[in-house]
């Protein structure tokens, strides 16, 4: 059951069962699916695996051409829409709706996966409403798969027309096992990364493979025991903003370069040439502009991630307070966790975590990140230097 196309969808037994049953009974097929789950739980992996299983003559063998191309996003009848921008534009949705009306070319179904369906309603409901039209008048052989963090992120009229599949946060061990098997990462590193990333699959992979990402995470977590005076707090906020900025640049540069190469290949240009002809240069300039808009959002996402990391050490200190036998997220920073638990009461630790959540909400609501971080860090001050 969990082999074949499902092999990378770790820790999601019930979901795999539901989806496999749907594949086995084509007569009862639903034409719109909504995948929700916390970031990094594998929403997109689940949708792609489901698409592969539907196209595969063997119901998802994981080996045949249909399976392989559906999984890697190159199947002629499986379109994966991923947005790195702030929103999915209504024009894009209209194109997709037109595409959805066409019969599949080689496969059994035409499948459209929208990875960030929450961005259909970023500014207006117009894109979501354009999609709704297609869902109200389904085309046989066409299946929509929408992915979003939670069901509240999708407008109710779309929700009511789709079947909901909820992914859970996979267990740390399952993520570690995936990193070992799929990415060839050594067991201790895989376990550290899965734990530190709190089971976020993509992030765990990044932590396991990038020294820089591990150092930056360590710097963030270490901040908690260093904020004594108001000056330390303001400094810590500036450091956090800077670390997130570096992290954002580091992870973006790899992808930006890959996109550039892909664009040049699509245009039939030589990616290794130092200068490109004018018509290609203008396309490159357009790509660079898009990448720049994206980087703003990305930097914010990185701050959010850093704040989740920072919150984890207060959470660990709370675990110590409560003498709970829950695993720590930061066993590698036990001295710091103990020091924090020694200096803060359980109530104060909860207040610290609330301050971090408040900063995340504020940044999400467009407050200047540095200001939100300063207000947060000022509430994280400890009474004395803990010397760890």
């Amino acid at each position: 059951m969990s082999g074949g196309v499902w092999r990378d969808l770790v820790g999601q037994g019930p979901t795999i069962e539901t989806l496999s049953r749907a594949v086995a009974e084509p007569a009862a097929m639903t034409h719109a699916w909504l995948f929700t789950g916390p970031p990094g739980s594998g929403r997109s992996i689940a949708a792609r695996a489901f698409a592969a299983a539907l196209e595969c003559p063997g119901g998802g063998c994981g080996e045949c051409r249909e399976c392989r191309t559906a999984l890697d996003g190159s199947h002629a009848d499986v379109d994966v829409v991923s947005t790195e921008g702030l929103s999915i534009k209504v024009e894009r949705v209209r194109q997709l709706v037109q595409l959805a009306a066409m019969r599949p070319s080689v496969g059994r179904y035409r499948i459209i996966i929208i990875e960030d369906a929450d961005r259909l309603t970023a500014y207006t409901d117009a894109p979501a409403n354009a999609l709704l039209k297609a869902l109200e008048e389904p085309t046989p052989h066409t299946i929509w798969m929408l992915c979003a963090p939670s069901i509240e992120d999708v407008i109710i009229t779309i929700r009511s027309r789709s079947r909901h599949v909820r992914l859970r946060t996979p267990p740390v061990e399952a993520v570690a096992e995936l990193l070992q098997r799929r990415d060839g990462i050594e067991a201790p590193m895989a376990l550290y990364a899965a734990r530190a990333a709190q089971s976020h699959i993509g992030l765990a992979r990044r932590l396991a493979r990038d020294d820089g990402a591990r150092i930056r995470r360590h710097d963030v977590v270490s901040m908690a025991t260093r904020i004594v005076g108001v000056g330390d707090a303001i400094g810590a906020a500036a450091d956090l903003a800077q670390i997130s900025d570096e992290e954002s640049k580091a992870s973006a540069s790899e992808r930006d370069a890959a996109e550039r190469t892909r664009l040049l290949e699509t245009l039939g240009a030589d990616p290794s040439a130092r200068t490109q002809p004018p018509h290609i240069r203008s396309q490159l300039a357009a790509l660079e502009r898009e990448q720049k808009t994206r980087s703003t959002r990305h930097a914010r996402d990185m701050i959010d991630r850093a704040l989740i990391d920072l919150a984890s050490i207060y959470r660990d200190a709370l675990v110590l307070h409560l003498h709970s036998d829950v695993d720590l997220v930061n066993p590698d920073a036990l001295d710091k966790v103990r020091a924090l638990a020694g200096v803060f009461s359980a109530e104060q630790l909860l207040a610290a975590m609330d301050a971090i959540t408040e900063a995340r909400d504020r940044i999400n609501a467009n407050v200047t990140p540095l200001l939100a971080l300063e207000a947060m860090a000022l509430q994280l001050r400890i009474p004395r230097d803990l010397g760890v």
Partner: protein
Amino acid sequence: MSPAAFPALTLVSGPEEVLADRAIATLIDQARASGADVVRLEATAYEPGALRIHASPSLFGGETCIIVRGLHEASDELQADLLSLLAAPASEVHLVVAHASGNRGKKVLDAMRKQDAVVIECPAIKSDRDKSDFVHKEFTRARRTITSEGVRALVEAVGQDVRELAAACAQLVADTEGTITDAVVDTYHGGKVEATGFRVADAVVAGRTGDALRLLRHAIGSGVDPVPIVAVLAMQLRQLIKVGAAGRGSSNQLASSLGMAPWQVDKARRSVGHWSPEGLAVAVQAVAAADAEVKGGGRDPVYAVERAVLTVTRARGIR
């Protein structure tokens, strides 16, 4: 500079466009004054071979000044053409090359430096300290005097954009006489949003609640957006905390280690004694909450800023 001294090779180097534009404009004036023809080439629109055509001796003699902008974006062809021109210099050609930043065009840069090109540096003007220095230089260049309060007022009012700052300096030089004070600057730029924000923030930090509220109501009544007012207040509090935590040291030392202008350090030092760390912490919380409200979280942004002003001035009393 006499026409004879007009250099054969000039490199305009650095990312600050205002400075590069100005350097090139001066060079063009000099070239024209010495009777040379001026040819301007943009790297992004360069046609291979163009450089050779412009550099070849004209039938009627005379000198040519070739200006190439954007070496940092130059195609391989342009770089090759520049290198061959540099390898066989023509005595009647003056070459000016502008390069903003980065590694592209490095061979040309090296060749020019090796041939003793005159280098005009155009460093980025980013921090408030850079901007203050820039303003000082602008007025010195025009043989005018500006007080340090005047510099502060000008940077606060129009410092967001270096081009606007340069234009404002030029306008003050042209339209006024004598020493330029903050009062003079205010007459010209006092209506700017940023200037209003700074006045409100100054009043808040100094604990002048009545003034702060009056200025705020007046600003908002005349249609000023509350968002930059909150941003300025946040910046002032940030500077107070930084300067307060930095301890002793000269204003200049502190200014460069904190990325502030010396007058900002002095100003913060004068105010910070009236504040306790706890009071500053409360003040920053209030400003962050107001920022969330003015950006759409709350129903009444004006009320949100007013409340922040009241909370911050009261926080000044916390011991």
